[in-house]
């Protein structure tokens, strides 16, 4: 199942950087070496086995933008499932950025009016921490106003922290078919394990696909933090020609397991009952493998 995803925004806003970090195992620092994208770079990313993200990374220099909006309008904006529009929060050409954004919105409205639109206010790391919320809200309000009648979802992001994972997890989540079905099964798995929560990650990107939480947790950013942490670690493993397989952390009052679930996913199981032995949890994970594999392949009906 192939889904067309447009990645747009002005030149230097960080489109190729984020794509390379999420899908091509770059670390943040490596993106400094990226050159400007010429015209459109296409890539197909297999996600969860049979979902294919057909990414259109559209170089943002003005000549190209003009071209997308005019000559190539239909070609670019037809059959779009998701538009990701990236704004450089530090850009000094605010009105011009907005002008191009609105042109793209118009083109989407004409050609793919059901597309979901995500706006990333990017490079938030360059804004002083205390001001980030305020800056984000201002921009979000303005962008929403300018996108009407289309609805958009906005995120503040930076390649330097977990916010990038938060945004991209939400984006892919919106593309996964039958995600509710998966969630229901994850929920029963959580009960069987007597876990506080279980979280499903896509294997290569470590983006969060789904989760089931039975015990409330105060940190609403925890999943993207874990994505970021494990992704970083996977990269350092591959530097030593090894691959991350699984992990277990145990202290007095909690235990966390991260392990392969299906060929396309990892699962994280969080326990807080100290009387449940690690071995029991590991057996539960092992037992769940084939079940989730079949769900993924669509062999278990809704």
């Amino acid at each position, binding site marked *: 199942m192939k889904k067309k995803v447009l990645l747009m925004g002005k030149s230097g806003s960080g489109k190729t950087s984020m794509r390379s970090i999420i899908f091509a195992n770059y670390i943040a620092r490596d993106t400094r070496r990226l050159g400007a994208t010429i015209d459109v770079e296409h890539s197909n990313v297999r996600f969860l086995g049979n979902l294919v993200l057909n990414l259109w990374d559209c170089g943002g220099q003005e000549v190209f933008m003009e071209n997308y909006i005019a000559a190539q309008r239909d070609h670019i904006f037809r059959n779009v499932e998701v538009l990701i529009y990236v704004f450089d929060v530090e850009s000094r050409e605010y009105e011009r950025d907005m002008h191009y954004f609105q042109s793209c919105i118009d083109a989407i409205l004409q050609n793919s009016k059901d597309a979901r639109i995500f706006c990333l206010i990017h490079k938030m790391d360059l804004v002083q921490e205390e001001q980030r919320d305020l800056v984000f809200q201002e921009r979000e309000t303005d962008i929403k106003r300018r996108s009407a009648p289309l609805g958009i979802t906005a995120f503040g992001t930076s390649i330097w922290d977990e916010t990038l994972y938060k945004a991209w997890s939400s984006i892919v989540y919106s593309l996964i078919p039958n995600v509710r079905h998966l969630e229901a099964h994850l929920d029963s798995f959580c009960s069987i394990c007597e876990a506080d929560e279980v979280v499903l990650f896509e294997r290569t990107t470590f983006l969060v696909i789904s989760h089931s939480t039975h015990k409330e947790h105060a940190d609403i950013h925890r999943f993207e933090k874990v994505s970021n942490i494990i992704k970083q670690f996977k990269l350092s493993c591959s530097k030593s020609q090894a691959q991350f397989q699984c992990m277990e952390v145990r202290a007095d009052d*909690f235990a966390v397991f991260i392990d392969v679930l299906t060929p396309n996913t990892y699962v994280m199981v969080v326990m807080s009952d100290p009387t449940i032995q690690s071995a029991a949890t590991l057996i539960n994970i092992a037992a769940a493998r084939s079940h989730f594999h079949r769900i993924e392949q669509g062999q278990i009906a809704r």
Partner: protein
Amino acid sequence: MAAHNNYGAFHGDAEDEVDSHSPRGQQSDPELPQAQELQKPRLLLMGLRRSGKSSIERVVFHKMSPNETLFVESTSKLRKESIVLSMDLEIWDFPGHLDVDDPSFDGEEVFGGSTALVFVIDAQDDYLEALQRLYTTVTRAHKVNPEISFEVLIHKVDGLSDDHKIETQRDIHQRISDELADAQLDNIHLSFYLTSIYDHSIYEAISKVIQKLIKQLATFENLMNILCSNSGVEKAFLFDIMSKVYIATDSSPVDMQSYELCSDMIDVIFDVSSIYGPDTQDATLSPSSNPNPGNGQGHAVIKLNNGMVLYLREVNRFLSLVCLLREDNFEKQGLIDYNFRCFQEAILDVFRLRKHGPGALKDKYSHSYG
């Protein structure tokens, strides 16, 4: 990498940072007069303005993420920090405009005692002035305290190609050695490190600098050798968890890849623990209220697909041991854990000795018998 400042859950919270002007309770304990006399080992961070001194201190000892150092303000006066690591350590972060020849500069106080002078040179900049400053600083410090160790960080090498790095180090080494030789001071030994806050190099360098200040280093190494050979462990590091500095390793050679993996494991485990450990969910607890001192029971396992296992065990609330071993050897986890507990006990004894003087161990044992 995530910036994080509260690792409390896994090992209990530590007093992260103590104002050096208020002596800590421990020191004023009247029953331990010896502790008062001991000067804490000290790292002096010196070098020209904007060479990166404060950034190093923030990144290594306060978990600041490297890109955030862009916001660090220039240091206007000496900042002393008492870092409560596994070993007590003071870090003195000097302003770049420091003049060691100024009459108000108290060389005796600054350079005395068990001290490492860490001189930071910005390798991306013209370094001739820095070398001049290095020379005056080194000669002054050496006069006051011939025992002081000189550590030269050729810093910000992330902007340099590999060839350029080596050439820079060679050039700096050559120039400063010539100058010292001309002054007949070639008995002064300087160590050089290529560092950047954007990768492991800064941790590796600071680890080596700190190890020179640890008097019991040989004992630690020895204990680690015994542990490794008895447990089928290929490589082990004893990490200070807050800083990711390793204070000892077994005597097999350090290969950078294993070191980086072990060091990254610390990040993973403590980041995950700081999310799911129960304490941290209560954000109102300040780090210094120390609700739950680690009991040395925490552990973690990471398996890799090449048959290797990373095994982490908490030693106390500051220290963790990270081992790299083959998966077949890990099957004897019971044996490893037993050996670990012996190791842990021995390490903790060394620390009690150091903290409380030679009498401490005797006290411990006489208590249990009497």
